[in-house]
């Protein structure tokens, strides 16, 4: 009787040692991921960012985790693309799951709202694909970002116009923060840099489906380049309607973001997408960092397609947090903020990432390089599109 119970106790101990981790300090480090996974947010973007973030976990956990053996884990919450949804999601990952930093933000309004709460809670945020100035321009201690901001996007296309010798430029922009912001910034930089560009700027309501009245004015202006500053459906409608009115292809069009890399692009524009210029944040023809190269390979293996910018940045931001935890030698959010401000981090793109306390919108901000690509023939894979311009080169 005594013997058997002793054996049983021993067996229990053995079992217990198998399930509980051997050392107390090995509890995982949690990173918050606030992404849009349902409407009115953009669920596609949310999924793509999440894919990248998950692979960053694979990368670091595959190497044994951080801080000498602690695994990384994600706490994913749906922001629904709404500010209130984003605030609730931020509170949940920080409050319930004890995230040490939060990233994944795609909608600017969500990022801005979350930062207002983060400011008092003290757990840092990194904007993954949010471009509004306010995210970093408010100079909050907790606010970081790794996305292209308007002034750099505008500087890039103005440099491109100069290179191409475009003198008359029409900009057709939606009346959102994004569209109006870009028009204002373009106008400002043309004046500031005294560029020889005559700018015709026209705006349209995001809910408009018929841009014929605006495009008729573009046609009458006879520009050298038409900049398409629509997002989503209006961007696609403008491509079609400009072709209908015989503006394109005589007048080339530049799309203000990387929408043409989406898989359905050629299905929507079989006859009108050729020779289109578009802003992109990544091209396989670009040189990548070591972890960036690992990532594209891992992504292609897992998803049987090439990664896009959303996934790359989702990966890069989680990688930065992992490195910051490592460099801070602890998972305390305050220490992580300190490290983010002073440290140097590897990202998917070549070169090192830093978050200096710079002026204005450049505060705590890192912008990946901007590219302008051009399709060379109808139906061309975006990965084959010619790199016509790369910022900083």
């Amino acid at each position, binding site marked *: 009787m005594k013997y058997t119970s002793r054996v049983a106790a021993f067996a229990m101990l053995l079992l217990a040692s198998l399930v509980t981790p051997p050392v107390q300090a090995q509890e995982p480090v949690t990173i918050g991921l606030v992404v849009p996974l349902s409407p009115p947010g953009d669920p596609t973007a949310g999924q793509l960012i999440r894919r990248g973030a998950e692979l960053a976990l694979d990368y670091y956990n595959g190497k044994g985790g951080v801080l000498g053996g602690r695994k990384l884990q994600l706490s994913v919450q749906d922001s629904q693309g709404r500010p209130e949804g984003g605030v609730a999601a931020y509170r949940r990952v920080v409050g319930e799951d004890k995230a040490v930093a939060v990233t994944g933000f795609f909608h600017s309004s969500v990022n801005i709202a979350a930062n207002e709460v983060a400011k008092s809670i003290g757990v840092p945020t990194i904007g993954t694909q949010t471009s509004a100035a306010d995210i970093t321009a408010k100079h909050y201690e907790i606010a970081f970002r790794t996305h292209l901001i308007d002034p750099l996007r505008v500087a890039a296309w103005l440099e491109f116009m100069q290179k191409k010798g475009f003198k008359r430029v029409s900009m057709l922009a939606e009346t959102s923060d994004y569209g109006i912001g870009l028009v204002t910034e373009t106008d400002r930089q043309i004046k500031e840099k005294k560029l020889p560009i005559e700018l015709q700027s026209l705006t349209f*309501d995001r809910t408009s489906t018929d841009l014929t009245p605006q495009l008729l*004015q573009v046609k009458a202006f006879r520009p050298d380049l038409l900049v398409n500053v629509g997002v989503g459906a209006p961007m696609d409608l403008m491509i*079609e309607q400009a072709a209908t009115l015989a503006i394109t292809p005589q007048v080339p069009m530049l799309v203000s973001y990387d929408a043409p890399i989406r898989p359905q692009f050629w*299905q929507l524009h079989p006859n009108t997408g050729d020779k289109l210029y578009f802003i992109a944040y990544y091209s396989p023809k670009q040189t990548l960092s070591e972890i960036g190269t690992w990532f594209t390979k891992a992504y292609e293996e897992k998803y049987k397609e090439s990664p896009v910018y959303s996934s790359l940045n989702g990966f890069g931001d989680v990688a930065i947090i992992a490195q910051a935890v490592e460099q801070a030698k602890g998972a305390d959010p305050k220490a992580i903020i300190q490290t983010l401000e002073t440290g140097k981090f590897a990202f998917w793109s070549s070169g090192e990432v830093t978050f200096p306390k710079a002026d204005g919108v450049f505060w705590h901000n890192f912008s990946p390089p901007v590219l302008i690509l051009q399709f060379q023939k109808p139906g061309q894979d975006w990965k084959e599109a010619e790199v016509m311009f790369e910022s900083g080169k």
Partner: protein
Amino acid sequence: MFSFELFTQALLAGIVIGVIYALMALGITFIYSIVKMINWAMGEFYMLGSYAQYLIVAYWLGPDLWYIAAILSAATVFFAGWLIEPILIKPMFTGGIERRDDYATVVTIALLLLLRNLATAISGPYQRTPGTNLPGVMLGPLPESGARFAAFLAALAAIALFTLLLKRTWLGLALRATSQSRVGAQTSGVDVLSLDKLAFGIGVGLAGLAGALLAPVFMVYPTNGVVTTTKGFEIIVIGGLGSVPGALVAGVALGIAESLGATFIASAYQNAYGFVLLLLVLALRPSGLFGERLRQA
């Protein structure tokens, strides 16, 4: 930047889009006149029509048979409405519901959300297009896409056919009688409740037809019906609730006002010119251009 060419172009573009707007509005006004309810989910039936057109053209008939696809798509939406009406709308008259307007509003807004989220869940948020092989045309100085011009002609034809149905058939007479007095029609022997089903189906079928015709022009995605609903309501207020000629005249007026306003005043307010027109009409004729001042007994 005024030029005569630009003016003519903008005017023609306004007329073309205006007739298309009229087709979008027709269903709303028709359903209201029979069933006495505002269908807030009208745009979602437009959306269903556009998806039906996409599926039929892309996976079955191909873009050359777009007109057959459009008829099939409209018929599909008609049946969807015909099936939905007895479940959602009919209780308004038979379920002892006291606040019918509130009931109709709640039910159709719930339907709107359901259909939109269903479309997002099934097809994703991406835009799609059935594609088109129709060559572009020149309307005087205005280059116009073949698909949009075809939609314009088909919309005119549909409005004409619909008018003939109302004016020249027994069914049309019963519908017109019911729009005047539901109780009067009932005691004349008209089965108003089954007419409701038919009217709801025809009304949403018209929106579905617009969606099908415009699928290659304005694309196919879960929220593409928003325009139908907003323009539709502007048009029925301008034209007069329940009036078919009102919808046509107001649609064209709205199209022209938006086109000229956006071209010559300020393009950002393209969607506001309709409201200006609407306020103007309301100030001068509160019941709309073709509306009845008071319902005739």
